């Protein structure tokens, strides 16, 4: 076998075998996901649901000021797309200070928050289509007071 054929054979063999392991791995409990991109499993739309499950499509952040005023903090105000906004909400719920700093930096000057609420607008899935459930508060994240410079 020539050197060229050996290189090509290695490329074909490694690519197909590794992709096959990732593809069929879940049968044996091996879930590699997208860690080794571009070797990925193609699990898009693979979750199964049952009637009455909720589509938790959107979590909105709402800030509460010292005077009790409520301010919506949508993804647009943070310059984020939906999936990264979702990640930011997750990071806020995990108390990551970088996430909180990012939210606070996006606020107009002079606004000081005491708390951030994570709100959800769940929609129930029924055989005849969606049924909206109204909004619920999933989490409340306290905002530490700024240290005074005086």
């Amino acid at each position, binding site marked *: *076998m020539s050197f060229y054929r050996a290189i090509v054979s290695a490329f074909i063999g490694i690519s197909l075998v590794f992709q096959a392991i990732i593809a069929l791995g879940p049968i044996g409990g091996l879930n590699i996901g997208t860690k080794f*991109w571009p070797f990925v499993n193609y699990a898009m739309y693979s979750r*199964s649901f049952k009637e009455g499950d909720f589509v938790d499509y959107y979590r909105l952040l709402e800030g509460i000021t010292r005077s009790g005023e409520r301010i919506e903090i949508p993804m647009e105000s943070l310059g984020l797309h939906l999936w990264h906004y979702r990640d930011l909400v997750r990071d806020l719920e995990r108390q990551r200070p970088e996430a909180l700093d990012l939210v606070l930096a996006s606020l107009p000057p002079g606004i000081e928050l005491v708390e951030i609420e994570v709100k959800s*607008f769940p929609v129930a*899935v029924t055989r005849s289509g*969606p049924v909206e459930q109204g909004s619920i508060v999933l989490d409340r994240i306290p905002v530490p007071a700024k240290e005074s410079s005086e």
Partner: protein
Amino acid sequence: MTDLVNKWSNYWFRPGRCFDLALVRIVLVGLQCYLLLSYSFPSLMYALSLPEYLYQPRVVLRVLMPFGVPMPSETSVLVIFWVTFLFGIFSFFGFLTRLSLAVFALLNTVLQAFIYSFGDVHHPEAVMMFALFALALGPSGRVASIDAWLRARKQTGNENSVGLLEIEEPGAAWPILFIQWFFPLMYLSAVVSKLTRGGIEWANGISLQYFMILEAYKNDSDLALFVSQFHYFLKFAEYIVLAFQASFFLILFFPRLKWIYLPLGLIFHLIIYVTLRAPFPQWIAMYIVYIPWSLVILWLARKRVGLATSS
């Protein structure tokens, strides 16, 4: 052992039509250049605007740059982007084809991996990376390229395209065969993921209703909202999806099935696009690897000549 090596060689390194490979090169590189401008560029700009704490370089970047992958500057990303695009143009026209394709494949992988280093990973691009590397390793510029034109000028002093469709080479078949094999693995992965996560219950009608409703609310899609109301239709669609994805590999062993699977797959991806807004243009374009284009064109040409002589 020798027998196995011979079988391997006879399968992968059988002579293939160079025109078919060149066509795959032109279509896939052309599409990737378009996607670079229409999708990758805005995605790169968006990625550069994201907070640095989200940046987790993907494994492929860490392999390519083992001494650390700091968050790149906007200038370096822009330089890599335009170099990638330039080599894409070279690859499209077949200038220094093998080198251009290798650089194009490598830099596309780097750019896409950077975009995906902020936590959000999607599925359409991965197979394109493999296809570009396969094209780089194969004789993709043997015909229909500037390289071929320059070679012909050297040999005969003028352009010679006689027999373009009939030129064969032992290395011209495997990149196409490779992509043909890669596709069934992707579809098998999709069906295995569904069945291992939720079992056959995935096809209960509700699962697709859920994704339609998600799409309807996420992107204000009236079409998805409308379709989400048809429980039994979606249940039927789920069974079709499972059957299609589980059996697509049959196309490798019974090539005539492509006349069923390819139109079905095309419809499948177009429906996903219009309802769930999940674009897979790379996958649709890559279906061309299942068609022996040179044979089809030759057959059509002979038929036309036959008609002309008989009249």
